[in-house]
Protein backbone atom coordinates (compact mmCIF):
# COMPACT_ATOMS: atom_id res chain seq x y z
CA UNK A 1 0.00 0.00 0.00
CA UNK A 2 1.67 3.22 -1.07
CA UNK A 3 1.84 6.02 1.47
CA UNK A 4 0.43 9.44 0.78
CA UNK A 5 2.60 11.90 -1.12
CA UNK A 6 4.70 13.69 1.54
CA UNK A 7 4.02 17.04 -0.12
CA UNK A 8 0.29 16.48 0.33
CA UNK A 9 0.84 15.51 3.98
CA UNK A 10 2.91 18.65 4.56
CA UNK A 11 0.36 20.87 2.83
CA UNK A 12 -2.46 19.23 4.81
CA UNK A 13 -0.56 19.86 8.03
CA UNK A 14 0.16 23.42 7.00
CA UNK A 15 -3.49 24.03 6.21
CA UNK A 16 -4.71 22.48 9.44
CA UNK A 17 -2.16 24.32 11.53
CA UNK A 18 -2.93 27.66 9.89
CA UNK A 19 -6.70 27.30 10.13
CA UNK A 20 -6.51 26.01 13.71
CA UNK A 21 -4.14 28.76 14.82
CA UNK A 22 -6.37 31.29 13.12
CA UNK A 23 -9.48 29.89 14.78
CA UNK A 24 -7.65 29.92 18.08
CA UNK A 25 -7.01 33.65 17.75
CA UNK A 26 -10.69 34.20 18.53
CA UNK A 27 -11.60 31.31 20.82
CA UNK A 28 -9.79 32.36 24.02
CA UNK A 29 -11.36 35.81 23.90
CA UNK A 30 -14.79 34.20 23.57
CA UNK A 31 -14.17 31.89 26.53
CA UNK A 32 -13.05 34.75 28.73
CA UNK A 33 -15.32 37.58 27.56
CA UNK A 34 -18.50 35.58 28.15
CA UNK A 35 -17.45 35.03 31.76
CA UNK A 36 -16.46 38.67 32.25
CA UNK A 37 -19.76 39.80 30.75
CA UNK A 38 -21.52 37.51 33.22
CA UNK A 39 -19.56 39.06 36.08
CA UNK A 40 -20.35 42.60 34.90
CA UNK A 41 -24.03 41.87 34.50
CA UNK A 42 -24.10 40.29 37.94
CA UNK A 43 -22.71 43.52 39.35
CA UNK A 44 -25.41 45.39 37.43
CA UNK A 45 -28.14 43.25 38.95
CA UNK A 46 -26.66 43.53 42.45
CA UNK A 47 -25.92 47.26 42.48
CA UNK A 48 -28.62 48.33 40.03
CA UNK A 49 -26.23 50.92 38.55
CA UNK A 50 -26.72 51.68 34.86
CA UNK A 51 -22.98 51.91 34.21
CA UNK A 52 -22.62 48.15 34.67
CA UNK A 53 -25.35 47.51 32.13
CA UNK A 54 -23.52 49.83 29.74
CA UNK A 55 -20.34 47.93 30.43
CA UNK A 56 -22.03 44.63 29.68
CA UNK A 57 -23.47 45.99 26.46
CA UNK A 58 -20.34 47.75 25.24
CA UNK A 59 -17.96 44.88 25.94
CA UNK A 60 -20.65 42.61 24.56
CA UNK A 61 -20.52 44.49 21.29
CA UNK A 62 -16.75 44.06 20.97
CA UNK A 63 -17.19 40.43 21.98
CA UNK A 64 -19.74 40.01 19.17
CA UNK A 65 -17.28 41.25 16.54
CA UNK A 66 -14.85 38.62 17.74
CA UNK A 67 -17.42 35.88 18.20
CA UNK A 68 -18.71 35.96 14.61
CA UNK A 69 -15.33 35.18 13.16
CA UNK A 70 -14.74 32.49 15.80
CA UNK A 71 -17.93 30.74 14.73
CA UNK A 72 -17.07 31.05 11.06
CA UNK A 73 -13.59 29.63 11.42
CA UNK A 74 -14.87 26.91 13.75
CA UNK A 75 -16.93 25.58 10.86
CA UNK A 76 -13.68 24.99 9.01
CA UNK A 77 -12.32 22.89 11.85
CA UNK A 78 -15.40 20.68 11.93
CA UNK A 79 -15.02 20.03 8.20
CA UNK A 80 -11.30 19.57 8.04
CA UNK A 81 -11.07 16.27 9.89
CA UNK A 82 -13.14 14.82 7.07
CA UNK A 83 -11.77 16.78 4.15
CA UNK A 84 -8.07 16.46 4.95
CA UNK A 85 -7.64 13.74 7.57
CA UNK A 86 -9.72 10.97 6.14
CA UNK A 87 -7.66 8.13 7.58
CA UNK A 88 -7.64 9.81 10.99
CA UNK A 89 -11.42 10.20 10.87
CA UNK A 90 -11.85 6.59 9.88
CA UNK A 91 -9.32 5.33 12.41
CA UNK A 92 -10.62 7.16 15.49
CA UNK A 93 -13.99 8.60 14.39
CA UNK A 94 -15.81 6.08 16.55
CA UNK A 95 -14.38 7.64 19.68
CA UNK A 96 -13.10 11.05 18.52
CA UNK A 97 -16.31 12.07 16.74
CA UNK A 98 -18.45 11.44 19.80
CA UNK A 99 -17.23 14.37 21.91
CA UNK A 100 -17.57 16.62 18.86
CA UNK A 101 -21.18 15.54 18.38
CA UNK A 102 -21.91 15.95 22.09
CA UNK A 103 -20.34 19.39 21.93
CA UNK A 104 -22.94 20.34 19.34
CA UNK A 105 -25.80 18.85 21.33
CA UNK A 106 -24.86 20.03 24.78
CA UNK A 107 -22.94 23.24 24.32
CA UNK A 108 -22.93 24.86 20.91
CA UNK A 109 -26.70 24.79 20.49
CA UNK A 110 -27.13 26.42 23.86
CA UNK A 111 -24.47 29.06 23.23
CA UNK A 112 -25.74 29.99 19.77
CA UNK A 113 -29.42 30.10 20.65
CA UNK A 114 -28.94 32.13 23.80
CA UNK A 115 -26.40 34.51 22.30
CA UNK A 116 -29.20 35.78 20.06
CA UNK A 117 -31.31 36.45 23.15
CA UNK A 118 -28.34 37.97 24.95
CA UNK A 119 -27.85 40.59 22.24
CA UNK A 120 -31.48 41.15 21.26
CA UNK A 121 -33.42 40.31 24.39
CA UNK A 122 -32.51 43.25 26.67
CA UNK A 123 -35.97 44.77 26.38
CA UNK A 124 -37.89 41.55 26.20
CA UNK A 125 -36.56 39.78 29.28
CA UNK A 126 -36.58 40.59 32.98
CA UNK A 127 -33.26 41.45 34.64
CA UNK A 128 -32.74 38.04 36.28
CA UNK A 129 -33.85 36.21 33.14
CA UNK A 130 -31.34 38.11 31.02
CA UNK A 131 -28.63 37.49 33.61
CA UNK A 132 -29.44 33.78 33.51
CA UNK A 133 -29.12 33.86 29.71
CA UNK A 134 -25.70 35.52 29.95
CA UNK A 135 -24.54 32.86 32.40
CA UNK A 136 -25.83 30.13 30.10
CA UNK A 137 -23.86 31.60 27.19
CA UNK A 138 -20.71 31.72 29.34
CA UNK A 139 -21.23 28.18 30.58
CA UNK A 140 -22.00 26.90 27.09
CA UNK A 141 -18.96 28.46 25.45
CA UNK A 142 -16.76 26.81 28.08
CA UNK A 143 -18.61 23.51 27.78
CA UNK A 144 -17.79 23.68 24.08
CA UNK A 145 -14.15 23.96 24.98
CA UNK A 146 -14.56 21.04 27.38
CA UNK A 147 -15.75 18.61 24.70
CA UNK A 148 -13.24 19.80 22.12
CA UNK A 149 -10.43 19.31 24.61
CA UNK A 150 -11.73 15.88 25.59
CA UNK A 151 -11.35 15.03 21.90
CA UNK A 152 -7.90 16.59 21.85
CA UNK A 153 -7.03 14.77 25.07
CA UNK A 154 -7.74 11.53 23.25
CA UNK A 155 -5.16 12.43 20.60
CA UNK A 156 -2.58 13.13 23.31
CA UNK A 157 -3.33 10.11 25.46
CA UNK A 158 -5.78 7.66 23.85
CA UNK A 159 -7.98 6.49 26.72
CA UNK A 160 -11.38 4.83 26.45
CA UNK A 161 -10.89 2.99 23.16
CA UNK A 162 -9.17 -0.10 21.83
CA UNK A 163 -8.13 -1.22 18.36
CA UNK A 164 -10.44 -3.64 16.56
CA UNK A 165 -8.65 -5.65 13.83
CA UNK A 166 -11.96 -6.52 12.16
CA UNK A 167 -12.94 -2.93 11.52
CA UNK A 168 -9.37 -1.59 11.32
CA UNK A 169 -10.06 1.25 13.69
CA UNK A 170 -10.07 2.28 17.35
CA UNK A 171 -13.42 1.51 18.91
CA UNK A 172 -14.96 3.32 21.83
CA UNK A 173 -15.18 1.21 24.98
CA UNK A 174 -15.26 3.47 28.00
CA UNK A 175 -17.09 6.76 28.19
CA UNK A 176 -15.87 7.41 31.73
CA UNK A 177 -12.23 6.92 30.77
CA UNK A 178 -12.58 9.20 27.76
CA UNK A 179 -14.27 12.04 29.64
CA UNK A 180 -12.22 11.81 32.81
CA UNK A 181 -8.89 11.29 31.09
CA UNK A 182 -6.38 13.25 33.21
CA UNK A 183 -4.94 14.92 30.11
CA UNK A 184 -8.38 16.13 28.98
CA UNK A 185 -9.14 17.44 32.47
CA UNK A 186 -5.97 19.42 32.96
CA UNK A 187 -6.05 20.64 29.38
CA UNK A 188 -9.60 21.91 29.64
CA UNK A 189 -9.02 23.86 32.83
CA UNK A 190 -5.72 25.26 31.54
CA UNK A 191 -7.23 26.35 28.20
CA UNK A 192 -10.49 27.67 29.55
CA UNK A 193 -8.80 29.80 32.18
CA UNK A 194 -6.18 30.96 29.69
CA UNK A 195 -9.23 32.30 27.87
CA UNK A 196 -10.26 34.16 31.03
CA UNK A 197 -6.82 35.78 31.10
CA UNK A 198 -7.18 36.81 27.45
CA UNK A 199 -10.58 38.36 28.10
CA UNK A 200 -9.37 40.20 31.19
CA UNK A 201 -6.36 41.62 29.35
CA UNK A 202 -8.56 42.78 26.50
CA UNK A 203 -10.95 44.64 28.79
CA UNK A 204 -8.07 46.08 30.80
CA UNK A 205 -6.10 47.17 27.76
CA UNK A 206 -8.95 48.94 26.00
CA UNK A 207 -9.99 50.61 29.27
CA UNK A 208 -6.41 51.75 29.82
CA UNK A 209 -6.63 53.47 26.44
CA UNK A 210 -9.67 55.45 27.66
CA UNK A 211 -7.88 56.50 30.82
CA UNK A 212 -4.85 57.57 28.80
CA UNK A 213 -7.00 59.67 26.48
CA UNK A 214 -9.12 61.04 29.34
CA UNK A 215 -12.37 59.60 28.04
CA UNK A 216 -15.08 57.50 29.71
CA UNK A 217 -13.02 57.54 32.87
CA UNK A 218 -15.65 56.26 35.28
CA UNK A 219 -16.54 53.51 32.86
CA UNK A 220 -12.91 52.55 32.33
CA UNK A 221 -11.98 52.61 36.02
CA UNK A 222 -14.75 50.16 36.84
CA UNK A 223 -13.88 47.93 33.92
CA UNK A 224 -10.24 47.84 34.95
CA UNK A 225 -11.15 47.04 38.55
CA UNK A 226 -13.18 44.01 37.54
CA UNK A 227 -10.82 42.86 34.81
CA UNK A 228 -7.66 43.17 36.92
CA UNK A 229 -9.10 41.13 39.79
CA UNK A 230 -10.56 38.61 37.36
CA UNK A 231 -7.29 38.36 35.43
CA UNK A 232 -5.01 38.07 38.44
CA UNK A 233 -6.77 35.03 39.92
CA UNK A 234 -7.12 33.47 36.48
CA UNK A 235 -3.43 33.82 35.64
CA UNK A 236 -2.45 32.19 38.92
CA UNK A 237 -4.80 29.31 38.09
CA UNK A 238 -3.37 28.98 34.58
CA UNK A 239 0.16 28.65 35.89
CA UNK A 240 -0.91 26.02 38.42
CA UNK A 241 -2.61 24.02 35.71
CA UNK A 242 0.36 24.41 33.40
CA UNK A 243 2.46 22.76 36.08
CA UNK A 244 -0.10 19.94 36.37
CA UNK A 245 -0.01 19.42 32.60
CA UNK A 246 3.78 19.21 32.67
CA UNK A 247 3.60 16.57 35.38
CA UNK A 248 1.09 14.60 33.26
CA UNK A 249 3.23 14.84 30.15
CA UNK A 250 6.12 13.44 32.15
CA UNK A 251 3.98 10.38 32.86
CA UNK A 252 2.16 10.05 29.53
CA UNK A 253 4.18 11.74 26.80
CA UNK A 254 7.85 11.56 27.80
CA UNK A 255 9.02 12.63 24.33
CA UNK A 256 6.99 15.82 24.60
CA UNK A 257 8.33 16.81 28.00
CA UNK A 258 11.91 16.06 26.96
CA UNK A 259 11.44 18.23 23.87
CA UNK A 260 9.88 21.03 25.92
CA UNK A 261 12.88 21.02 28.24
CA UNK A 262 15.46 20.53 25.49
CA UNK A 263 16.61 17.42 27.31
CA UNK A 264 18.71 15.13 25.11
CA UNK A 265 20.22 12.92 27.84
CA UNK A 266 18.46 11.37 30.81
CA UNK A 267 19.05 13.34 34.02
CA UNK A 268 21.41 11.66 36.43
CA UNK A 269 21.21 13.91 39.48
CA UNK A 270 18.66 16.31 41.01
CA UNK A 271 21.08 19.10 40.15
CA UNK A 272 20.08 18.90 36.48
CA UNK A 273 19.55 22.46 35.24
CA UNK A 274 16.27 23.89 34.01
CA UNK A 275 17.12 25.67 30.78
CA UNK A 276 16.10 29.30 30.65
CA UNK A 277 17.37 29.57 27.11
CA UNK A 278 19.07 27.22 24.68
CA UNK A 279 19.57 26.62 21.00
CA UNK A 280 18.51 23.01 20.38
CA UNK A 281 19.81 21.52 17.13
CA UNK A 282 17.61 18.67 15.89
CA UNK A 283 20.24 17.50 13.34
CA UNK A 284 23.05 16.86 15.77
CA UNK A 285 20.71 16.06 18.68
CA UNK A 286 22.34 18.47 21.09
CA UNK A 287 22.04 22.02 22.38
CA UNK A 288 24.41 24.46 20.70
CA UNK A 289 24.40 26.58 23.85
CA UNK A 290 22.34 26.57 27.02
CA UNK A 291 21.77 28.72 30.10
CA UNK A 292 20.24 26.85 32.99
CA UNK A 293 19.35 27.06 36.65
CA UNK A 294 20.41 23.95 38.58
CA UNK A 295 18.11 22.06 40.97
CA UNK A 296 14.94 23.34 39.28
CA UNK A 297 14.16 20.78 36.58
CA UNK A 298 13.72 17.65 38.69
CA UNK A 299 11.29 19.03 41.27
CA UNK A 300 9.47 21.00 38.56
CA UNK A 301 8.72 17.99 36.37
CA UNK A 302 8.60 15.04 38.73
CA UNK A 303 7.52 16.86 41.90
CA UNK A 304 10.26 14.88 43.71
CA UNK A 305 13.99 15.33 44.32
CA UNK A 306 15.23 11.91 43.26
CA UNK A 307 13.45 10.69 40.10
CA UNK A 308 15.25 11.00 36.79
CA UNK A 309 13.74 12.41 33.61
CA UNK A 310 14.37 10.47 30.40
CA UNK A 311 16.19 12.35 27.65
CA UNK A 312 15.35 12.21 23.96
CA UNK A 313 18.33 10.14 22.83
CA UNK A 314 17.54 7.50 25.43
CA UNK A 315 13.86 7.60 24.54
CA UNK A 316 14.78 6.97 20.89
CA UNK A 317 16.82 3.97 21.92
CA UNK A 318 13.96 2.65 24.03
CA UNK A 319 11.69 2.82 20.98
CA UNK A 320 13.82 0.25 19.10
CA UNK A 321 12.14 -2.90 20.48
CA UNK A 322 8.73 -1.28 20.04
CA UNK A 323 9.50 -0.67 16.37
CA UNK A 324 10.48 -4.30 15.83
CA UNK A 325 7.27 -5.44 17.54
CA UNK A 326 5.24 -2.90 15.63
CA UNK A 327 6.51 -4.17 12.29
CA UNK A 328 5.48 -7.69 13.29
CA UNK A 329 2.07 -6.40 14.37
CA UNK A 330 1.41 -4.61 11.08
CA UNK A 331 2.57 -7.58 9.01
CA UNK A 332 0.22 -9.84 10.96
CA UNK A 333 -2.60 -7.33 10.64
CA UNK A 334 -2.21 -7.09 6.88
CA UNK A 335 -2.23 -10.86 6.67
CA UNK A 336 -5.35 -10.99 8.85
CA UNK A 337 -7.15 -8.40 6.74
CA UNK A 338 -7.25 -10.81 3.79
CA UNK A 339 -7.29 -14.27 5.42
CA UNK A 340 -9.08 -13.61 8.74
CA UNK A 341 -7.18 -16.58 10.19
CA UNK A 342 -6.68 -17.23 13.89
CA UNK A 343 -2.89 -17.57 13.68
CA UNK A 344 -2.19 -14.08 12.32
CA UNK A 345 -4.75 -12.64 14.72
CA UNK A 346 -2.88 -14.24 17.61
CA UNK A 347 0.42 -12.82 16.34
CA UNK A 348 -1.16 -9.40 15.98
CA UNK A 349 -2.65 -9.51 19.49
CA UNK A 350 0.80 -10.32 20.87
CA UNK A 351 2.35 -7.14 19.43
CA UNK A 352 -0.80 -4.98 19.27
CA UNK A 353 0.35 -2.36 21.78
CA UNK A 354 3.24 -1.35 19.53
CA UNK A 355 1.37 -1.34 16.20
CA UNK A 356 1.70 2.43 15.87
CA UNK A 357 5.47 2.06 15.69
CA UNK A 358 4.98 -0.37 12.82
CA UNK A 359 2.98 2.26 10.93
CA UNK A 360 5.73 4.74 11.71
CA UNK A 361 8.38 2.44 10.22
CA UNK A 362 6.57 2.29 6.87
CA UNK A 363 8.11 5.51 5.61
CA UNK A 364 11.59 4.05 6.05
CA UNK A 365 10.90 0.62 4.55
CA UNK A 366 12.00 -0.12 0.96
CA UNK A 367 9.08 0.83 -1.33
CA UNK A 368 7.25 1.75 1.87
CA UNK A 369 6.39 -1.92 2.24
CA UNK A 370 7.12 -3.51 5.60
CA UNK A 371 6.96 -7.00 4.07
CA UNK A 372 9.85 -6.13 1.79
CA UNK A 373 12.35 -5.46 4.60
CA UNK A 374 15.11 -8.05 4.50
CA UNK A 375 16.73 -9.12 7.81
CA UNK A 376 19.88 -7.32 6.67
CA UNK A 377 18.01 -4.06 6.18
CA UNK A 378 16.10 -4.29 9.45
CA UNK A 379 18.63 -2.57 11.76
CA UNK A 380 18.87 0.39 9.40
CA UNK A 381 15.09 0.71 9.19
CA UNK A 382 14.75 0.53 12.97
CA UNK A 383 17.51 3.07 13.50
CA UNK A 384 15.96 5.45 11.00
CA UNK A 385 12.54 5.06 12.63
CA UNK A 386 13.94 5.65 16.11
CA UNK A 387 14.96 9.13 14.99
CA UNK A 388 11.41 9.71 13.77
CA UNK A 389 9.86 9.06 17.18
CA UNK A 390 10.72 12.46 18.65
CA UNK A 391 9.20 15.86 17.91
CA UNK A 392 11.01 18.93 16.65
CA UNK A 393 12.84 20.13 19.73
CA UNK A 394 13.59 23.69 18.67
CA UNK A 395 9.92 24.52 18.02
CA UNK A 396 8.59 22.77 21.12
CA UNK A 397 11.29 24.22 23.38
CA UNK A 398 10.77 27.82 22.34
CA UNK A 399 6.98 27.73 21.92
CA UNK A 400 6.78 26.54 25.52
CA UNK A 401 9.18 29.16 26.80
CA UNK A 402 7.47 32.08 25.12
CA UNK A 403 4.14 30.95 26.56
CA UNK A 404 5.58 30.52 30.03
CA UNK A 405 7.50 33.79 30.18
CA UNK A 406 4.37 35.62 29.02
CA UNK A 407 2.38 33.88 31.76
CA UNK A 408 4.65 35.22 34.49
CA UNK A 409 4.59 38.66 32.90
CA UNK A 410 0.77 38.62 33.09
CA UNK A 411 0.83 37.80 36.79
CA UNK A 412 2.98 40.86 37.43
CA UNK A 413 0.91 43.14 35.21
CA UNK A 414 -2.44 42.09 36.68
CA UNK A 415 -1.07 42.31 40.21
CA UNK A 416 0.15 45.89 39.70
CA UNK A 417 -3.08 46.91 38.01
CA UNK A 418 -5.22 45.36 40.75
CA UNK A 419 -3.12 47.10 43.38
CA UNK A 420 -3.31 50.54 41.80
CA UNK A 421 -6.98 50.11 41.03
CA UNK A 422 -7.68 49.37 44.70
CA UNK A 423 -5.59 52.39 45.67
CA UNK A 424 -7.42 54.44 43.06
CA UNK A 425 -4.09 55.60 41.59
CA UNK A 426 -4.41 54.27 38.07
CA UNK A 427 -4.19 57.58 36.28
CA UNK A 428 -0.81 58.40 37.83
CA UNK A 429 0.73 55.30 36.27
CA UNK A 430 0.69 56.15 32.62
CA UNK A 431 3.52 53.76 31.87
CA UNK A 432 1.55 50.84 33.32
CA UNK A 433 -1.53 51.87 31.36
CA UNK A 434 0.48 51.99 28.15
CA UNK A 435 1.88 48.56 28.96
CA UNK A 436 -1.67 47.23 29.37
CA UNK A 437 -2.65 48.66 26.01
CA UNK A 438 0.17 47.06 24.08
CA UNK A 439 -0.29 43.80 26.01
CA UNK A 440 -3.78 43.16 24.59
CA UNK A 441 -2.54 40.66 21.98
CA UNK A 442 -0.03 39.02 24.33
CA UNK A 443 -2.37 36.47 25.95
CA UNK A 444 -3.64 35.49 22.51
CA UNK A 445 -0.03 34.96 21.49
CA UNK A 446 0.57 32.89 24.64
CA UNK A 447 -2.48 30.74 23.81
CA UNK A 448 -1.19 30.17 20.28
CA UNK A 449 2.22 29.13 21.56
CA UNK A 450 0.55 26.86 24.07
CA UNK A 451 -1.29 25.18 21.24
CA UNK A 452 1.96 24.83 19.30
CA UNK A 453 3.68 23.30 22.34
CA UNK A 454 0.91 20.76 22.79
CA UNK A 455 0.51 19.77 19.15
CA UNK A 456 4.07 20.08 17.86
CA UNK A 457 5.18 18.16 20.94
CA UNK A 458 2.74 15.37 20.02
CA UNK A 459 4.50 14.71 16.71
CA UNK A 460 5.17 12.39 14.94
CA UNK A 461 1.80 11.09 16.07
CA UNK A 462 -1.68 12.29 15.30
CA UNK A 463 -2.95 9.81 17.90
CA UNK A 464 -0.12 9.36 20.37
CA UNK A 465 1.47 5.96 19.94
CA UNK A 466 -1.16 4.66 17.51
CA UNK A 467 -1.40 6.62 14.28
CA UNK A 468 1.48 8.60 12.70
CA UNK A 469 0.53 11.97 11.27
CA UNK A 470 1.76 11.12 7.77
CA UNK A 471 -0.65 8.23 7.62
CA UNK A 472 -3.65 10.17 8.90
CA UNK A 473 -4.03 12.45 5.89
CA UNK A 474 -6.39 12.18 2.92
CA UNK A 475 -4.92 10.98 -0.36
CA UNK A 476 -5.49 14.19 -2.31
CA UNK A 477 -3.37 15.51 -5.11
CA UNK A 478 -1.26 18.61 -4.68
CA UNK A 479 -3.56 20.70 -6.86
CA UNK A 480 -6.51 20.28 -4.48
CA UNK A 481 -4.38 21.39 -1.58
CA UNK A 482 -3.05 24.44 -3.41
CA UNK A 483 -6.60 25.42 -4.31
CA UNK A 484 -7.87 25.22 -0.74
CA UNK A 485 -4.78 26.85 0.75
CA UNK A 486 -4.99 29.85 -1.54
CA UNK A 487 -8.70 30.16 -0.85
CA UNK A 488 -8.20 30.08 2.91
CA UNK A 489 -5.35 32.54 2.74
CA UNK A 490 -7.44 35.03 0.75
CA UNK A 491 -10.64 34.70 2.75
CA UNK A 492 -8.98 34.67 6.13
CA UNK A 493 -6.85 37.71 5.30
CA UNK A 494 -9.97 39.63 4.33
CA UNK A 495 -11.70 38.52 7.51
CA UNK A 496 -8.91 39.57 9.81
CA UNK A 497 -8.62 42.92 8.06
CA UNK A 498 -12.34 43.54 8.50
CA UNK A 499 -12.35 42.36 12.11
CA UNK A 500 -9.37 44.50 13.13
CA UNK A 501 -10.84 47.50 11.36
CA UNK A 502 -14.11 47.12 13.25
CA UNK A 503 -12.44 46.34 16.56
CA UNK A 504 -10.34 49.48 16.37
CA UNK A 505 -13.26 51.56 15.16
CA UNK A 506 -15.59 50.50 17.97
CA UNK A 507 -12.93 50.47 20.67
CA UNK A 508 -11.93 54.04 19.68
CA UNK A 509 -15.53 55.14 19.56
CA UNK A 510 -15.99 53.93 23.12
CA UNK A 511 -19.09 53.12 25.09
CA UNK A 512 -21.33 56.03 24.24
CA UNK A 513 -21.27 55.14 20.56
CA UNK A 514 -24.28 52.95 21.02
CA UNK A 515 -25.81 54.75 23.96
CA UNK A 516 -26.97 57.93 22.35
CA UNK A 517 -29.30 56.03 20.08
CA UNK A 518 -30.75 53.72 22.70
CA UNK A 519 -34.42 54.57 22.64
CA UNK A 520 -35.63 52.29 25.39
CA UNK A 521 -33.41 52.16 28.43
CA UNK A 522 -34.73 55.51 29.55
CA UNK A 523 -32.19 56.17 32.26
CA UNK A 524 -30.95 59.41 30.90
CA UNK A 525 -27.49 58.71 32.22
CA UNK A 526 -25.99 58.20 28.83
CA UNK A 527 -24.46 61.34 27.39
CA UNK A 528 -22.78 62.02 30.70
CA UNK A 529 -19.86 59.78 30.05
CA UNK A 530 -18.32 62.74 28.37
CA UNK A 531 -18.36 64.58 31.69
CA UNK A 532 -16.91 62.18 34.19
CA UNK A 533 -17.26 64.51 37.15
CA UNK A 534 -20.97 64.60 36.65
CA UNK A 535 -21.32 60.98 35.78
CA UNK A 536 -20.74 59.48 39.19
CA UNK A 537 -23.69 61.37 40.52
CA UNK A 538 -26.13 60.30 37.89
CA UNK A 539 -25.59 56.66 38.70
CA UNK A 540 -26.61 57.05 42.31
Amino acid sequence: MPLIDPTVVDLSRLQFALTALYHFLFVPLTLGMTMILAAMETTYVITGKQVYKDMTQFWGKLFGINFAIGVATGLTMEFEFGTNWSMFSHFVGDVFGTPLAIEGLMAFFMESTFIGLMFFGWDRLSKPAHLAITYLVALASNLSALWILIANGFMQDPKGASFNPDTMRMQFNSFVQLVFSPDAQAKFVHTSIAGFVTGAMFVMGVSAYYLLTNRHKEFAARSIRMAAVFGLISTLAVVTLGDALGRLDDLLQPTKIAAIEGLWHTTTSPAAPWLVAALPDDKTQSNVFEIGVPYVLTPLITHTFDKSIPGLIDLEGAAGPKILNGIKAIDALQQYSTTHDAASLATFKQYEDDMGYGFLAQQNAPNQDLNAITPAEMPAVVQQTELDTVPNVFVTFWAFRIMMFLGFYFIALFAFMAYFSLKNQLENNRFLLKLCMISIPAPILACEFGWITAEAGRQPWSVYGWLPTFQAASSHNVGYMVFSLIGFALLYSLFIAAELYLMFKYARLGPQSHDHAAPVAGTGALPMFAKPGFAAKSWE
Partner: protein
Amino acid sequence: MKTFTKFLGLAVVLLIAIVLAVLCGDYGPWYFAWLVGTTMIILIAVAGGVLFETQLETQKKGS
Protein backbone atom coordinates in the same frame (compact mmCIF):
# COMPACT_ATOMS: atom_id res chain seq x y z
CA MET B 1 -47.28 27.37 48.88
CA LYS B 2 -44.90 29.85 47.28
CA THR B 3 -42.34 29.30 50.00
CA PHE B 4 -42.73 25.57 49.57
CA THR B 5 -42.03 25.68 45.79
CA LYS B 6 -39.10 27.95 46.41
CA PHE B 7 -37.81 25.50 49.01
CA LEU B 8 -38.37 22.60 46.62
CA GLY B 9 -36.54 24.40 43.83
CA LEU B 10 -33.58 25.17 46.03
CA ALA B 11 -33.55 21.57 47.25
CA VAL B 12 -33.31 20.36 43.66
CA VAL B 13 -30.46 22.79 42.94
CA LEU B 14 -28.71 21.61 46.08
CA LEU B 15 -29.15 17.97 45.09
CA ILE B 16 -27.70 18.61 41.63
CA ALA B 17 -24.81 20.52 43.18
CA ILE B 18 -24.04 17.69 45.61
CA VAL B 19 -24.24 14.98 42.94
CA LEU B 20 -22.06 17.07 40.63
CA ALA B 21 -19.56 17.73 43.41
CA VAL B 22 -19.37 14.08 44.45
CA LEU B 23 -19.10 12.79 40.86
CA CYS B 24 -16.59 15.41 39.79
CA GLY B 25 -14.68 15.16 43.05
CA ASP B 26 -14.30 11.41 42.62
CA TYR B 27 -13.54 11.11 38.93
CA GLY B 28 -12.58 14.56 37.75
CA PRO B 29 -10.75 16.58 40.39
CA TRP B 30 -9.70 19.19 37.87
CA TYR B 31 -13.24 19.59 36.55
CA PHE B 32 -14.34 20.12 40.12
CA ALA B 33 -11.59 22.67 40.56
CA TRP B 34 -12.80 24.48 37.47
CA LEU B 35 -16.37 24.66 38.73
CA VAL B 36 -15.33 25.99 42.11
CA GLY B 37 -12.56 28.18 40.73
CA THR B 38 -14.61 29.84 38.01
CA THR B 39 -17.41 30.61 40.44
CA MET B 40 -14.85 32.10 42.76
CA ILE B 41 -13.18 34.16 40.03
CA ILE B 42 -16.51 35.64 38.98
CA LEU B 43 -17.65 36.34 42.53
CA ILE B 44 -14.39 38.02 43.49
CA ALA B 45 -14.49 40.15 40.35
CA VAL B 46 -18.05 41.16 41.23
CA ALA B 47 -16.91 41.93 44.76
CA GLY B 48 -14.19 44.11 43.24
CA GLY B 49 -16.87 46.05 41.37
CA VAL B 50 -19.06 46.44 44.44
CA LEU B 51 -16.04 47.55 46.47
CA PHE B 52 -15.37 50.22 43.84
CA GLU B 53 -18.80 51.72 44.46
CA THR B 54 -18.29 51.63 48.21
CA GLN B 55 -14.90 53.33 47.88
CA LEU B 56 -16.45 55.99 45.68
CA GLU B 57 -19.15 56.65 48.24
CA THR B 58 -16.73 56.90 51.17
CA GLN B 59 -14.53 59.20 49.14
CA LYS B 60 -17.45 61.48 48.42
CA LYS B 61 -18.57 61.54 52.03
CA GLY B 62 -15.03 62.31 53.15
CA SER B 63 -14.56 65.20 50.75
